[in-house]
């Protein structure tokens, strides 16, 4: 174990320890709780930045190993992909924490909420830093455990129904995943994630077991990624408070599933082997179905948060499409969407939360004229919505561009058609609320109207995070060519994965003439 490995443990602890402490705080200890929340979030971000510096500038490697069972280790490691996901989590956690403090002001059970909230982030960061499948499985299950209390946080029968469904899906998914991981460990031993996979040599010997395992992995991770037949927990989970929805959709649960599929494709099987087994095309087909299905359902949903949820179902599968294209350019598109979708979707959810908290707006038709009362939030919503549609220069455009190029590169041009259709659908369900918000005739009175007295249109702890993530969503699109952009980073990952020296230049020139 490198001496730097403890840095990874400490990064995990920065959310775990505050989480555990917060559980035991009394409701009234607002200042202390906020201190732990923000302190943990800030510290985690700072440590991850120092980690980034260490990895990229000084070329250090970080890994931490703890023996659990003979031959089976808990491995934490920082590679480019894990840093991408970890950074995303850390940034969005900080923002969401601020938002949640504002959102939950005066509501009961805040200690419990923030405790599980922190556990949830620890689990997500754990997934990001997992160095092998066993570790990933462990944090994946912890994530299930930590998010359930958040889903049922309101404690209403409705939220309980949602929680039961969520638990049923994720526990079954977790069980399938456990079986798959154990089986693979029996076949191949517990190996660390390796760029290009480590199963190639085993394939001739286990011709049917490895594809079956692949299916099990897709099912296990697909539950959380809300792949088609396994998606229905997600719209129901919308009963949770807005910050929870935001984090679940943008980072924690959904992305953990997608991230898991990416890991299995890239670092366990390897794209080449997955393609040879004939697994990539069916997976892509499933992802495309999910994209279209989610969009259509979103179109016919009038509840704002549910519409966003179906949008998530659809958007997350872009990531899967990108990876399943099995070509470097497509992979860039898929991976970069991991980040882009996260930032854009969290923007939208924050906006929805602001509308609901400030004016009591829950349905699309209630949004008429909201732009005059809350212009800043509406602007953020517009940016997020346009990004989802894929309009330039938003981040979503980058994704779709790369996905299209990637499809062409591997000779699957028809995928572009799918992207077009899906973009049209996106437009069809995002443009109406945007137009209504700006140009609709405002209602005479909102069902509630809070936070009017101040300078701002709503509580500053709700508004500032929203604007920050909206700005990020815009920036990621505008500044995609800078060397700190997610695109640059993802390209670096894909280069490494595919072993290309110069893909960066080739790809870059294609998109940016």
């Amino acid at each position, binding site marked *: 174990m490198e001496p730097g490995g403890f840095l990874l443990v400490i990064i995990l602890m920065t959310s775990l320890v505050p989480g555990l402490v917060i*559980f*035991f705080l009394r409701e009234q200890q607002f200042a202390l709780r906020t201190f732990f929340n923000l302190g943990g979030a800030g510290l985690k971000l700072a440590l991850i930045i120092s980690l980034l510096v260490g990895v990229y500038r000084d070329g250090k490697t970080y890994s931490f190993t*703890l*023996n*659990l*069972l*003979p031959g*089976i280790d808990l491995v934490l490691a920082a590679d480019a992909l894990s840093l991408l996901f970890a950074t995303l989590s850390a940034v969005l956690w900080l923002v969401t924490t601020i938002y949640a403090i504002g959102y939950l002001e005066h509501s009961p059970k805040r200690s419990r909420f923030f405790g599980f909230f922190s556990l949830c982030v620890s689990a997500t960061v754990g997934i990001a830093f997992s160095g092998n499948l066993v570790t990933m*499985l*462990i*944090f994946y*299950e*912890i994530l*299930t*455990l930590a998010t359930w*209390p958040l889903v*049922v*946080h*309101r*404690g*209403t029968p409705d939220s*309980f129904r949602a*929680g*039961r469904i969520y*638990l049923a899906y994720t*526990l*079954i998914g977790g*069980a399938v995943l*456990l*079986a798959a991981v*154990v*089986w693979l*460990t*029996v076949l191949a031993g517990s190996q660390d994630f390796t760029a290009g996979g480590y199963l190639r040599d085993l394939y001739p010997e286990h011709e049917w077991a490895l594809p079956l395992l692949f299916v099990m992995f897709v099912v296990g991770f697909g539950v959380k990624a809300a792949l088609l037949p396994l998606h229905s927990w997600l719209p129901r989970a919308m009963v949770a408070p807005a910050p929870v929805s935001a984090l679940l959709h943008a980072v924690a649960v959904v992305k953990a599933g997608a991230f898991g599929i990416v890991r299995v494709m890239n670092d366990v099987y390897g794209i080449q082997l997955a393609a040879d087994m004939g697994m990539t095309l069916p997976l892509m087909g499933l992802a495309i179905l999910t994209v279209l299905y989610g969009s259509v359902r979103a179109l016919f949903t009038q509840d704002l948060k549910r519409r966003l949820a179906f949008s998530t179902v659809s958007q997350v599968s872009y990531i899967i499409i990108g990876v399943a294209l099995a070509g470097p350019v497509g992979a860039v598109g898929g991976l970069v969407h991991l980040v882009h979708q996260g930032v854009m979707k969290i923007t939208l959810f924050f906006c929805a939360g602001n509308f609901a908290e400030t004016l009591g707006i829950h349905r699309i038709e209630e949004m008429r004229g909201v732009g005059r009362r809350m212009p800043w939030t509406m602007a953020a919503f517009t940016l997020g919505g346009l990004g989802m549609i894929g309009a330039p220069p938003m981040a979503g455009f980058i994704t779709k561009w790369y996905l299209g190029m990637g499809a062409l590169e591997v000779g699957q041009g028809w995928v572009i058609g799918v992207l077009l259709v899906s973009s049209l659908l996106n437009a069809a369900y995002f443009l109406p609320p945007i137009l209504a918000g700006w140009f609709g005739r405002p209602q005479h009175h909102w069902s509630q109207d809070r936070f009017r007295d101040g300078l701002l249109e709503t509580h500053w702890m709700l508004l500032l995070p929203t604007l920050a993530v909206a700005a990020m969503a815009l920036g990621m699109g505008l500044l995609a060519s800078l060397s700190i952009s997610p695109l640059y980073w993802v390209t670096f990952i894909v280069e490494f994965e595919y072993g290309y020296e110069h893909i960066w230049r080739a790809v870059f020139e294609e998109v940016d003439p």
Partner: protein
Amino acid sequence: MPIAGLTGGLSWAALIVIVPLVGALLTGLWPRAGGWVALVVALLTLGTTLGGALHVWWQGPEIHALGGWEAPLGIALVLDGLAAFMLLLTSVVGLFVTLYALGYVGRQERSGRFWVLWLWLWAAMNALYLSGDVFNLYVTLELVVLASVALVALASGGPALVASMRYLLLSLLGSLAYLMGVALLYGAYGALDLITLAEQVTPGHLLMMVAALMTVGLMAKTALFPLHGWLAPGHGSAPAAASPILSALVVKVSFYLMLRLWLTLFPDLATPALGVLMGGLGGAAVIWGGIMAMAADRLKPFVAYSTVAQVGYLALFFPFMLAVPGGWRAVVFFAAAHACAKATVFMAAGTLQRAAGHDRMSELADVMRGRPISSFAMGIAGAGLVGLPFTGGFIAKWLLVETAIAGDVWPWAVVVVVGGLLAGAYVFRLLGPAFLAGRGSPGRPIAGIMEWSTLGMALVSIALGFAGAASLQLLDATVTGPGGL
């Protein structure tokens, strides 16, 4: 396997028997000081057990010929990996239960009885784990039965008494079936020492009969399906400080004995058909217990049915024994993980019951919200029962599934995974109400130590999640028959 003999001088094995025994005698003489004696004894027992386990770890098994009379004439205490592991488990759970009971029975009238019975039970369990003689095992088994029956019967009221009567009769039937096996063994081989017998036994009708008598007898005591009927009413209606002992530890005693016998005397009798039969019974227990737990409406019977289900996994050692060398270790580790989790759940359930004044599950939500420490501990333990990570339950589940797949008996992996899901369903039912909206009320006053000891027990089950490798290594130092499983 090299055996480090240590006949003269001090012996860890002897100390591990003597310490709780002295405690039991002292509490018998001065019952009013029972709590403090028990606490001191618990700490000392943990200390000696740790010493013994470290001895096994570093120097291998210790065999202590009692009175200096070597087997086959004398009786030997055998402290090997398996025994040390079970002893350690007993001491750790025992310590936390003792702390809990200090709060629970503390100032109650006639608390002395509890302490006397509990320390006798503890001494009996230690003696049983260390015994290397088939007849001596019978005597220790009877000690365990009498003490645990009395612990169940401490709760007055028809159901508890009927349950303890049923338990006693079934146990006596089991003990005598076991003793008949001993008689047959002695008649055929003229020895009672386990290791001596292990070298002499030859497969045949007689050995099969012995195995059948002993196994069925011990199955009844372990409450393996379909001989599980006594468990739920017994463990469910016992006093709160006794339930964790019974469910976590006493059930494991007869399981241990069964395992020990199959590892030393009957390894050659294990056939795939037997594995399927016993594993099938175990699987049926997992499903049946899970369903009954889903249907239970009172907290403690609910937890007891969960024990019925989890005991089903113990039966998997039959198929595993055949499939993988050392596969039984997975089951032993599971037993430990279950013991820690189940002790926690029962302790928390006792606290809630006392705080609320009843244990109707549908009306406990207020108290659960009002007692976050107990609820939190129960949550951790619930995760352990389901087999979620960072608890011993996860490692146990991993080991079970791994053994099933590696040994190419994958249907048992399905049983384990499905059982985990069932556990998820009923644990959700247990913990869910705590998250319902509503006020929390702590209910009647509760001694703080009850809640904190419960939390401590829960933390042990997390610690166990990191002790997998060490546990397996300790279990490797187990004296088995020449068949060498």
